[in-house]
Structure formats: C-alpha cells, structure tokens
C-alpha cells in the first residue's frame, strides 16, 4: 500500500463489525503500517446500528476523531441501507461493499445517488457454506482487504491463520471454516475487481 486509507464499517451490535475492524487493524499492522481500529457505540444492545473505523497509514496516526470522508465503506447488514446514509462523505473515487445476495444494479438505487465503485458480496452464503453458521465478519474482512489492496492477498491469508489461531485458541474447530470463508470471498469478489486499481494504489 502507499496511500493512506480510511474505512467506515456499518453493522448491527453482535454481528462482528467491530471485530472485523479490529482484525483488519491487526493484519495491516503485520505489514509494518500504522493502524487504528475503533468502534463507535450507540446504545449498548444487540441489533442496534454500530459504526467502526479503520485508519491505515505509513505515518504515525494522531487524529482521534471519527471518519467522515472514508475511502471505503463496509456494510455488514444490508437492512441498514434503509435507515442509515451509508455513503455519507464517501469519496467519489472510493468504494462501498455491501453484504447482500443482490446484484450491484439492485442495490445502487438505495445508495443516495453514489456513483463510485459498488461491490456486493453474499457473506451469508459464503459463511454458511464455509462454516455452517452465519458470521459475516470473516467474509467482510476479506472483501475489505481485496477492495482496498491494503496488503498482498497471500500475506493476508498467511497472517490470518495466525490471528485465528490466537483468537480461537479455545475453539480451534472453527479456524478452518473461517479460513475457507476468507478464500471463498477473495475468489468471489475477484471478477468484479479485475482491471480496477486498488484504493491504496497511488
């Protein structure tokens, strides 16, 4: 990566948007970058809309505010499209990734006229195929890495195995499934990304 990257995550409490942001900070740190990953909490309850953020930079990060003009927006729960203006401030040359079985053409009308890059990923199907359960954060994490180009995908996969070993030390049986969710996502999103410049590229 060379350009600074700012990401905003939209999810609902309990879905793992915060965990995905922290895992992204974790894995980007392994490339030698300066990272920030933090949640913004509203009411503390399952299902309430939550926001989480990432800053990733080659320089030390001093700013401690939320992100208002993100390069990338990750929508973990598509029902938020009806209640939250997820593209607010999103840079025209940035991108938005939405967890939905729908096509880009179907969701674009819900995006307040956003004309930049839109990607969809069916994290539910990937998660159920890979893990047998619905945990959208691993697919969304992989999609964020793929669209942003924050790191090499092979390095990402290698680093994540280590992270999951640590994170799931008490339930190692879910490691392989989560790893499968990552690679399925990278494969699923690759055609949409072909010929596109990653957000981090100069």
């Amino acid at each position, binding site marked *: 990566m060379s350009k600074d990257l700012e990401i905003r995550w939209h999810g609902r409490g309990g879905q793992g948007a915060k965990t995905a942001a922290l895992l992204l900070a*974790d894995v980007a740190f392994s490339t030698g970058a300066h*990272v920030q990953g933090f949640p913004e909490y509203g009411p503390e309850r399952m299902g309430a809309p939550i926001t989480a953020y990432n800053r990733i930079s080659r320089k030390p990060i001093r700013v*401690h505010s939320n992100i208002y003009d993100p390069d990338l927006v990750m929508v973990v729960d598509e029902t938020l499209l009806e209640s939250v203006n997820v593209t607010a401030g999103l840079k025209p040359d940035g991108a938005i990734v939405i967890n939905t079985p729908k096509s880009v053409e179907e969701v674009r009308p819900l995006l307040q006229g956003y004309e930049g890059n839109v990607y969809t990923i069916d994290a539910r199907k990937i998660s159920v195929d890979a893990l047998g359960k619905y945990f959208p954060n691993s697919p969304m994490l992989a999609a964020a890495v793929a669209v942003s180009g924050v790191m090499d995908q092979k390095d990402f996969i290698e680093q994540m195995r280590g992270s999951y070993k640590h994170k799931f030390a008490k339930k190692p049986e879910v490691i392989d499934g989560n790893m499968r969710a990552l690679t399925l996502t990278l494969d699923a999103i690759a055609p949409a990304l072909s010929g596109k410049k990653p957000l981090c590229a100069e």
Partner: protein
Amino acid sequence: MARKDRMSGNEAVSYAIRQINPDVMPAFPITPSTEIPQMVSTYIANGQMDTEFIPVESEHSSMSATIGAEAAGARSLTATSSAGLALMWEELLLAASNRMPCALALVNRTLSGPLNINCDHSDGMGARDTGWIQIYAENNQEAYDNFIQAYPIAEDPRVHLPIMICQDGFITSHAVENIELLEDKEVKEFVGEYHPEEFLLNPGKPIAVGPYAVSNYVMEARRNQLEALERSKEVILEVADKFRQLSGRGFGLFEEYKTEDADYIMVIIGSAAGTAKEAVDQLREKGKKVGVLKLRVFRPFPAEEIANAIRHAKAVAIMDRTESYNTHGGPLGSEIEAGLYRAKATVMAVNYIYGLGGRDFTVDHAASVFAELESAVENETEVKQYQYIGLRE
C-alpha cells in the same frame, strides 16, 4: 529492547500492570474500564502475574480495599470510570489525606445524566480537588508509559500520594493502535520493589492510619499534604527524565507542540490533542503560526509553567472536555486564567467546552477555533470568552 505491537488503551494499561505485578488489585467493573480488571484477572489466572485480585461489590469497596491493602504495606491499585469514581469520592479523599501511594487507572467517561457511556472528563475533573496526582494521556502509548511511571512518582518519600492515570474512554481505551512496549525486566527495574517506611503490618513499629484529629492538628495535616503535592512536581519531572532515558519517549508537565513562535495556542488535554496537532500542521502549511500545548499533569497544576509557555501568544484557546457548573468556565479554563492573572500576563484567552458525552472533536473543529482567535485579533472584534463547540442551538 522495545517491542513493536498493536493494542487498545485498556490492553496497554493491563499489560503495564502485568509487568509491574503489584501486590493487590480490588476492582468492580464499569464501562469503559471493565476490560482492565478482566484482562488483569486473566493474566493472574494464567499464572503470568501473582497480584492478589479482590472482586468487590462496589467501587466504594474497591477504593476502600485499595486503601486498606496500601496501608498494610502492599502496592495496590484499582481501575474505574465515571459513576464508579463518583462512588469512590469519600475514599479518594481518604487515600490522599492518609498519604497512600496507591494507583488508579481511570478510563474517562462522562457522569450521568443523561446516562451515557462515552468520553468526557467530568469524572476525573470532578475529582480534581481530592488531593490525587492526575496524569492524562493522548493515546494508548502514553497511557502505558504513564502507568509505568505511576509508582515511582507516588511512592517517592517526598510525595507519598495516590496517583490517577487517565485515558479517554473508548477513544483510546477501545482503539487498537501501534505501540512500543518495554521488556518486563526493564519495567521491573524501573518501578523497583516497594519498601514503605511505615505500614500497618509492621509489629516492630506500630502506627495508626486515619485517626481522629482535633482542630488543633487538622490545618497542619492539610498543609503537609499540600506541600507533598507541590513537591510531586519535581518528582514527576525526574521520573519523566529517567523514563525518557529508558524509552526515548515522554514529556514532563506538558507537551509544547510548535508553540515557541506561535501567535495562537490551543491548550488541550487527552486524545483530542493529537487531532489538534494535525490541525496545527495543516494550518502551518498555509503559513499560520499556531501551536498546541497538551497538558499531561493536571494535578499538581502547573499554573506558572503554563502561563510562561503561552503568554507570548496573541490569543489562546483553552479547551475543556467537561462543564464545571461554576457558570464562568470549565476547570482548565478557570485555572489557566487565574494562573495568567497571577503571572501578570495579559494574553487574550477563550475557554471552549467540547466533546461532552463522546461528542466528536475533529480537525475541522480545531481549525475553526484557531480561525476564530485569529479573526478576533486581526479585526479587533470581541469573542465570547466562554463558549461551546459543535452545539446545536
């Protein structure tokens, strides 16, 4: 050898506590400091430290038990936030007046109401006159560094006072950022063993802690306590120097960021200081002479040092992340303005209240404050001397 890592502010403080391995930690959970006792008790359960952890039934009890353990001769600490600190009010005063060098990891959160879990400084600032030393952090690194310096300051025989190491709730406590960690051995050597001169579990030299004092003694006791707090300033500076030699990092009473030639200076505490420094760099690129004074030590209050560091400016903005309800300014504003008056400095000062209950403070907010100061000075216009940032009227 320093080790590069990434962790949240709560993880960083818990890591420092593990490295220090104090004797006793009583604690009661409250957002956003809950992770600290949670992580410390995990370290203990994993055999990575042997601190005696006491789960208590309230913060009134956690501070009481901290004082009890400290009085017995044990190096003690607790952690809390917001209403938890408020519930400790009586004990905070006891810890300081009984000269207990215990530590408290404060993760700043607003006080009710309305009920809110997010950051402002109303908890720490509400306890500003309890006699504790208070040190604030901009980020996870400073929260870690400050915690390692806590006991060498508090336990110094010239001081013997409790110390509160503060960081901003969620903004740094729950934000994963890069950090440089010291080796366990380096921390243990820096902090040293605790050998109190006098303590309760010392049958050869019995003492009383917290007895009644008749009117004939109270004023002298209070004055002694004040002088210890005054002396803590030199100790804080000595410890900061020693820490800088070890780590290459750190500041004394405050950090002066591009203030030397600045016409406009913002005085600010905590995580928003980094955001303000970013605004300074952006404005400097446009030729504006602006700077930030980030206050690290709020108690003892470095009134004279601050006055001397900002008096050359054309105008200063004093930023308070709490309301004081004295109706003429926040705690930092009132104290700096009093300090400027005593130093016979006549610099124009505007006191801004920002970030209450987690309201975001951005680079643009900081830039607009500098713009308002500059416009007032250039156009010789009046500015409201005590005002709110980002308030919906």
